[in-house]
């Protein structure tokens, strides 16, 4: 079992650009959640996908969008990047009863 895998592991983007991050959930999991973790802080919930639809969303602007595919994998898209978007982006997969497993994250640096 490969667990939750994210790609890429690191990337550097310029302000104003767009970025796409990818996540493959743990086998048997149908729910994918995305979190943003700024340096020295706890992860902040961005949104969650279930059955290819956004089920709930945290306090993030519309520049953050996502998608879930029929195989349960997911993408996080961020448009018009700001310096403040620099963070570790974490994907977590889960399935009832609850236990969420996190990937290793994608470190995004905006310059």
């Amino acid at each position: 079992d490969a667990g939750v895998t994210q790609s890429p592991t690191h990337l550097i983007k310029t302000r104003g650009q767009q970025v796409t991050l990818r996540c493959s959930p743990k086998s048997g999991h149908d729910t994918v959640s995305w979190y943003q973790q700024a340096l020295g802080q706890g992860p902040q919930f961005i949104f969650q996908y279930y059955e290819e639809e956004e089920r709930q969303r945290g306090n993030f602007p519309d520049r953050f969008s996502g998608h879930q595919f029929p195989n349960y994998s997911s993408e996080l898209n961020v448009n018009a990047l700001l310096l403040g978007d620099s963070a570790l982006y974490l994907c977590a997969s889960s399935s009832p009863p609850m236990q969420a497993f996190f990937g290793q994250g994608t470190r995004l640096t905006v310059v």
Partner: protein
Amino acid sequence: QQQVKQSPQSLIVQKGGISIINCAYENTAFDYFPWYQQFPGKGPALLIAIRPDVSEKKEGRFTISFNKSAKQFSLHIMDSQPGDSATYFCAASETMTTDSWGKLQFGAGTQVVVTP
């Protein structure tokens, strides 16, 4: 507004000692309380979790104590080892409602350093 407050921000403990991390919450709808361990450059890994119907849960050297009336819970790491040096996060979630299921609210984290 942070829904889960965690303390201390950091702590140093000697090998063999006990590390204690505390968390408090306000939302009484929370019914699932996990603890995560995170090493630098890695994603959080689930350590242990508890639900409000029990006051304590132990797994190996890790114990969660839960006080429902005080809306507080804590992690105790017994016989701390240098390999336990990491950042620990408490979290909370509602699991009984579809709209909130799976959304984890994290504390700010506690950096634990275990000295040899």
